[in-house]
């Protein structure tokens, strides 16, 4: 029976390849494996959160633009100016 924890990473890669995982899945696994070996488990968490944040921020920006459009349209109380002018003129004369 094999020893060597490095072999279990290869086993995971092999399994993903066998299951014909998409390229992004293999890339994700490579990144996870790399940061785990370099910096430990918390780095994996940071990696996932950073990717989520990156995608979410782009989406948020887009939604913020929509909200800004809605906000810019929020009707300003534009009073009909014609009537007050006529009233003023009447008062003056």
């Amino acid at each position, binding site marked *: 029976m094999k020893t060597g924890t490095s072999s279990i990473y290869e086993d995971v890669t092999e399994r993903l390849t066998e299951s014909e995982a998409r390229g992004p899945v293999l890339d*994700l696994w490579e990144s996870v494996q790399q940061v785990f070996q370099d910096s430990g*488990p918390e780095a*994996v968490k940071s990696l996932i959160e950073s*990717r989520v944040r990156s995608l979410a921020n782009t989406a948020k920006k887009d939604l913020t633009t929509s909200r800004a459009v*809605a906000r810019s349209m929020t009707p300003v109380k534009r009073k009909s100016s014609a009537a007050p*002018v006529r009233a003023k003129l009447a008062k003056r004369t």
Partner: protein
Amino acid sequence: MEAKYRLASLKAEGFRGICHPIDLSFHPRATVIVAPNGCGKTSILGAIEWALFGELPYQPRENATNDEIVNLHHHPQEAQVRVSLDNGVDTFDVSRTKRVGRRATELAAVFAGLRNFVGDGASEACFQHLGLTLDDFYRAVYLHQESIRGLLLDEPRVRNEALDRLFGVNKLRDILRMLSVKPATDAIGELQATKGRAAAKLQGAIGEVNAQYERALQDASREGLPADDLSPTLAASLVGDVAGRLSSAARLVGYPDVVTFPTADAPEELDRVATRARELVRSIRRKGTELQGGTASATQLGALEGSRATLSGAQTLVGTAGTELADAVGRLGGMEALSSEMEGVHETLSRLQREWDEVTANQRLNAEAISYLQHASAATECPVCGQPITAHDLLARLQEGLEDQLRIRLQAIEEARAAAKADLARLETAQGEIQRKQKALASAQDALRLAEGGALASLDTSVEASALHAALEAKIVQVREAGTRAAEAREAAETHLAAAESVIDRIRVIVRVLRSALERNQALGRLGAMDSSESTADLQMAALGSLAADIQTVAAAVQTVASDTARTALDVSGDDYGRFYATLCAHPYFDRLRISVEEQRVNGVDRNNYVIRTHSSLDGEASLASSRLSTAQMNCVALSVYLALATRLEHHLGFVILDDPSQSLDLEHKQALVQVLDELDPRLQLLIATQDLELGDMLSRRWPGDASTRYGLNWSPDHGAELVEADG
């Protein structure tokens, strides 16, 4: 079993509990170190581990330089360990040293007494010759007390972690712990909620803009604007109209003719033009107000009229005061005549006073003479005139004649004096009246001078005093006429301004219509873009969904490898740990052990969950081991699994280290442990450290004489651990 490295010897000094040099030779079959707690057993075992791998993971760190490695009393404060390995063909010597205060250790390795390696080269040589990492060392060679402790605990999480470590998949477990899809799903949920809110806000805004558009159209209709031609072109033509009217109004009120507007097409530009036009209306209107006699002209007219009134009043006062003074002088006389007359009166009064003094002196003499005569009646002549007279006659004469004359004289003087005083009083009154009239005249003249000065100032020109009034009148007429002209101009300008305002309102209405239409189109476009699955937000949310799916795929693959690896380990070692358990535990009922791997979902990710069950051969009853077995029996379970795995894992080391394996075991279980150890492959070298004398004796009896080596240890602060007995 291929030729594997076994421990040949260990030399150590200055390492943890070892101060003075110690030198151990290991027996090819079994070496047993028996010593009480705290005498350095674990230091010796740790020395082997540290020499080979440079780390003691279970040892808490004292500081960044790991100075707890070095013995406190060693001189020169340096840990030195040399481990010699032998596989029957070649030797492999590993030496490691470390000084206090230095983080790095110095590693040297010598293969077959010929090839020397140092530093990284030595580390690489160690990995190649040992064939395993430090993690694997813990599950394949060194049964550390901490490894057993995890298996003994009831808490499933700790037991699962300990077994994962034993099966070499603890790193996968660490990765799985962090491969959570929750951040992605949370972010998707949050984005969907945000998107919903944004869409609702847009819908609401569109509703408002529609209503606003309708209101703007109604206003346009009221303003008489053509509903089908509310275009920027129409607004631009209205702007031209406004510019013309404002220019006319500006010219009328003398405002600088700067009424120009930039060309405007977009609603915002038109709105700015309308705002600018309205500002101009205000400015021109203000100018018209000023021109009409607003602030400056009204003040001027007021000043002129005030000056005129003041001047007239002052002139009237002077005339009245002069008349009154002339009347008084005519009636009472001039001041000089009055003064002369007053001097005469004063002289009369002086004269009368003198006469009064004289008469009163005579009256006093007369009284004295009468008094004398009344007492001296022998007098024969008049004491005044010396004429012969009798005293009696004289007395009568004095009393009847002179005294009366003197009284009459005094009375006349008194009357004359009263008359003179009355004259004096009359003259003083007249003089006072004239003086008051003179003062009044002087005051009136002062006031007139002031009024003339004020009038000159308001005229702002040099005019003779006599022509002042006429000049004022002329000026007032002039200012009034100017005011009238300005009022007419302002009125005419106001007509233009009112018309301009009306047109500005129309422009504003057109702006509102155009802007509402534009905003509505923008919002509808944005809403359409949001509803589209091609929107950036939707694409990112889809990407997040893909990321979550990818994380799940990776987690599933990691977990599959983790569970497969654990199952393989259990399958491979299943017969052994079952046999070891049966021997070690010797349970009268639960005589069989079975460990299965299940999957447990934590935070959306599956992980290995080990179920350790004991079975009875008698009736097939099964139960969870931790709920049925004692701590000692669970220790037997841990030892069984460890020993079964240790004999199955592939690497280049042919020895097993057991640190205090008999924890909680009674006599029978210790005997069983010795039996199990004895039944292991005899080529597997055993290094056992124990504080248990009973176990030590059992092992000595099992491997008597040359079949094993036994060491005892003593420990003192100055010397550290010392070998005190060595049985071969």
